[in-house]
């Protein structure tokens, strides 16, 4: 192995390690678990305080709004498990009874606290006809 190859090799290793380390450390606090309600509520203690993207369905007639405010309380469920949730802010149009939602936030013993702008209602028909054929918005 020549001197030059050694230098290049060492530089590469150092760079890769440095970037890898940085990536790893930022990933630690940048990631969120993507979980379904039933997975989380089977053992809620294990999830308290962790950032989650919680997938579930809005329990019919559970959406309550405080008068003259944007404070919401509602329940989401999947496979029989239910969790109450609180949110303050504007909800998307598609947020209604039985809607499939993904909530961003943290789980506490009182329920799931959704962070600002953390309600995403999945609407399978956003960019495609209802038959479910695959399309993206053209391009992008």
């Amino acid at each position, binding site marked *: 192995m020549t001197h030059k190859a050694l230098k290049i090799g060492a530089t590469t290793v150092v760079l890769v390690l440095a*970037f890898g380390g940085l990536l790893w450390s*930022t*990933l630690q606090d*940048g*990631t*969120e*678990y*993507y*979980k379904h309600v039933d997975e989380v509520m089977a053992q809620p203690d294990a999830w308290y305080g962790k950032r989650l*993207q919680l997938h579930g369905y809005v329990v019919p007639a559970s959406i309550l709004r405080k008068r*003259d*405010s*944007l404070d919401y309380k509602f329940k989401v469920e999947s496979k029989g498990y239910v969790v109450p949730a609180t949110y303050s*802010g*504007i*909800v*998307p*149009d*598609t947020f209604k009874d039985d809607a499939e939602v*993904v909530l*961003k936030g943290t789980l506490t013993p009182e329920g799931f606290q959704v962070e*600002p*702008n953390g309600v*995403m209602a*999945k*609407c*399978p*028909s*956003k*960019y*495609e*006809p*209802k*038959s*479910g*054929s*695959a*399309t*993206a*918005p*053209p*391009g*992008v």
Partner: protein
Amino acid sequence: MASLGSFVLLATFVVSIYAAAISVAGARRGSRRFVESGIGALYLTTALATVASGIIVHAFVVGDYTIRYVQQYSDAAQPLFYKLTSYWGGLDGSILFWVFLLSLFGTIAVATNRERHRELIPYVVAVIAVVQAFFLFLMIVHRNPFDTFLTAVPDDGRGLNPLLQNPYMVIHPPSLYIGFVGMTIPFAFGMAALITGHLDDAWLRAVRRWTMLSWLFLSFGLTLGMIWAYEELGWGGYWGWDPVENAGLLPWFTATAFLHSVIVQERRAMLRIWNVTLVIVTFFLTIFGTFMTRSGVVQSVHAFGEDRDLALMFTGFMALTLIFSFGWVIRRLPLLRSRNELDSWLSREAAFLANNWILLFSALFVLFATMFPTLSEAVTGERLTVGPPFFNKWMAPIGLILLFLTGAAPLLAWRKSTASNLREQFLWPVAAALVTGGALVALGVRAWSSGICFALCGFVTATIVQEFYRGARVRQGATGTDLLTAIIGLVGRNKRRYGGYIVHLGIVLVFFGFAGDGFKQEEQVLLKPGQSATVGHFTVRHDAIRVTDDGQKQMITGHLTVFEDGREIGRLYPAKWFFRKHEDQPTTEVAIRRSFAEDLYVVMPAFDLKDQSASLHIVINPLVNWIWVGFGIMALGTGIALLPDTAFAFATAKLPAAAAARTTALLLTLLFALPGAVRAQHNDTGQPVPVVARTPFERAMQKKLICMCGGCGRQLLSECQCGMASDMRAELARLVSEGRTEEQIIQYYVAKYGSQEPLAAPIDEGFNRLAWAVPYLIGLGSFGLLGVIAFRWTRRREAAATPDPAPADPALEARLDEELRDLD
């Protein structure tokens, strides 16, 4: 017609395969006839793809709902314009559009290069034909746009998604496609060079313009996508690191890297392996981006349908592409050895190399983060996701480093910079950065990351100004013209270099706009009529909610009054539109009060008609318009770099200095004088719910006139509820029944009221809708103007050639060239 369409697709497929096979055979046997036949076959595929496109467009226009694709993406009520653009509104059609563009580009590229690069052409044809055949194969076996309904045929179509019924969405996809598809041409030439072993710079020269042009369209497409997200999706921002957006960004990074590293290969005969690799990776990423957005591999809130078969076919094609192309790279490694070595890290080629690494790293990082949920699920079984904050944490510093290199690279010399020329070159730009930075600190602007960005913007701008100034001084000394003519001459002498600097200036403005995001303010409120909310120095008062209808959609509009520091400055009308057949997915119509300092951006995501309350999302977006202006300048710069050599003959020749100075003055005025506060929002037009207009013409006329009662504040006739308005509507109805034309009716009103007062024309919606186009028009317009003037002068010079025995002093010219080279 549908069966004809399917047949044409099949024929195109067969011809493509033939073109590939005969070209390879021709190249291997050295048969001129075979090669010519392959070229002919490629031309034929263009004709066939045009016919297929014609058939599908025809089906859309006449409303042939026996074809599934037509039925799914259009309906009878759609305006003709959107019927035409439904062609690329869905997956199947977009693939056909892709094939059409590819065959067209391939034909142009082959036709312009067949004499100059004779040895490459057969393989270029083969590569293009194979890529084309893959997409045709997709259509034929899996996603045929000409599929028909086997049993019951519906009477009407489902209609194009309302979100896509928007002018940006009409230009955005084709622009992005042109960028994506255009990248296939450099790939084809690169592969041809690898296969034939003709690895000198010839292939690079052949594809330079293609890459630049594709890059321009890719940038344009990305910008339009941002504007669309900003104005139509209504979440207050323009870039959300959504997988679909990222898909377009990936090849942009590598193409940008390629445009820079090509220069190093030309100047220093280095980075040859790297350039071939970049071309391959760019092409791969265009295919990968298409795959990512179409196959449902990556989940996004946009929730695309999953399509496993399509995913499999794409994966197969991508794997083959990688194996085949890198296989050839490895085989040709001995030929690709670099002839020079890096002399010093303080050289321009080192800076270019750093820029390339960072761009490639950006592409890999975005790719990694976009695929992260899929990757983590595959590896650990846990689905982990990363959000925009994660992207921003990484991309903000990366962007700043790139911005720094944009300013630093031109200041470094090729091979090695000495201490003295570093001092000389960096003095002013660094001073500019320090002054900007110091001023910001004094003003108390946050340092990270916007403050640094502003300082770097100052640094890069100073670099560019210095480059132009020094180059022009040298030229001025040599030619004795004024400074402005010298600048034009300078640009004309090295269009790619100085066009590139103008592109950099555009990049600076884009970054300037990005930095504004750090000062964003937003608020979500629920307001009842009469209540108001304050964000920053704006106060927004909610007045009322009105419901109108124009036949295609119902519109719920919030009427808001805006105050700045207590003074009333205008009204805003955010709205929600409920399109027929798509009532469950209303579109959000954002109201924006634009200025170059900041946008006041108001959305009404929810409302309650019972108590007239409106939920409002109010955002102040500082500096955001500079992003769009920056793109306009980038387009201008790319345009200059792409101009043919003759275009600048006027300025490199001797010509009346005053004339050139006038041109420049004109251009500068165009660029800088046009700005003014442009406002874009939809106007609250349409029919009050109790519909009275009987014909579309009458309805249209009601929107062109206003109520003259004096008490209702110039409301449109179609809207006003007062008694006077209904009298006026009755009068209008009478005029319409009499069969008068629009012009006659307008004349009638002007005569009756003695002025143009009853006309609503000044609030012309068409104009407001076009307001976004201003930067592009400036860019294109000034580019066009420059071209026209240039060509005119070139002609005039030829005519008047005799009295002016041109290059007066060859020695002088030679010295100038020398000096310019030194500057390089």
